[in-house]
């Protein structure tokens, strides 16, 4: 288990007979209480395909039913039920041709990190760029790993100035920012947007306004009903 931010931890799971996954997919975690009460939530897979362990990064939702247990109570050696991998819409395949634009809001970075890692592991030559919006630097997941990717990662913080080495922004995402990050709609990138529902809807709206085809803009929303 790794601490990523004050709110989020990465769980490293040893899953017997794991069939493998595609970057962007998630798993459903089901917890069963002693009285038989069950609760199920989906969590995006953070690790790239083909790596030994399955990694989930879970953000604690204070009044959630599953995330407080996963982030605060679960201990190494504990077992729980998983269903997956699931999902076929919000996935990127390294054999896909064309550039890739990833747009993440907060912990929406998790499935996009699997894409970024897979892109690196497969030595893909696809032009890939990531725009990450977070409240503050301390909320940024995988911070030290992202520093390695600084030439393709663009950072905007909504509540503070990014450190000078990031050369980022301090505002919410807007059309100018998306235009600066590129690739432009004329290059037909595969676009993946993941984050809280209002963030995703705003980003998708801006992207379509900039000329991206709605079908090329893949979206995944995290909602307050999660946790």
């Amino acid at each position, binding site marked *: 288990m790794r601490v990523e931010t004050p709110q989020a931890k990465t769980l490293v799971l040893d899953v017997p007979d794991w069939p493998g996954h595609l970057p962007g997919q998630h798993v459903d975690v089901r917890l069963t209480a002693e009285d038989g009460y069950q609760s199920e939530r989906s969590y995006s897979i953070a690790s790239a395909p083909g790596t030994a362990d399955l990694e989930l990064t879970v953000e604690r939702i204070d009044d959630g039913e599953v995330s407080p247990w996963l982030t605060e109570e679960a201990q190494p050696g504990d077992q729980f039920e998983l269903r997956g991998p699931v999902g076929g819409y919000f996935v990127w395949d390294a054999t896909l041709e064309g550039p890739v634009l990833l747009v993440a809001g907060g912990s929406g970075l998790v499935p996009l990190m699997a894409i970024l890692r897979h892109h690196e592991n497969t030595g893909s030559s696809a032009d890939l760029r990531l725009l990450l919006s977070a409240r503050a630097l301390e909320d940024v997941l995988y911070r030290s790993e992202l520093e390695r990717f600084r030439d393709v990662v663009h950072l905007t913080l909504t509540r503070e100035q990014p450190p000078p080495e990031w050369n980022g922004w301090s505002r919410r995402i807007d059309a100018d920012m998306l235009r600066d990050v590129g690739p432009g709609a004329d290059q037909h990138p595969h676009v993946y947007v993941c984050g809280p529902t209002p963030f995703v809807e705003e980003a998708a709206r801006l992207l379509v306004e900039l000329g991206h085809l709605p079908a090329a803009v893949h979206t995944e929303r995290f*909602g307050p009903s*999660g946790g």
Partner: protein
Amino acid sequence: MSIHTDGNAIAGVLEEIFGVEVTATMRVCQSCGQEHAIGAHRLYRGAGLVLRCPNCGDIAAAVATKQDEYRVKLFGTWSEELV
């Protein structure tokens, strides 16, 4: 603003029902005629699960759990490619 996520969040449930992955399945809305992937549809959780068209909001699917079975109602045209 109403609280919703999207079809990706119930990929597991849908796969249990249909036996195949359907979030990449395209659906043409019976109401506005637009075509969107199931994963892009809005999901509302209440007593059951309701999927709605991301363009016009009309209903795409309703899923309820009754004891050990799912009750499913589908709307619009769902296109599943044969492999």
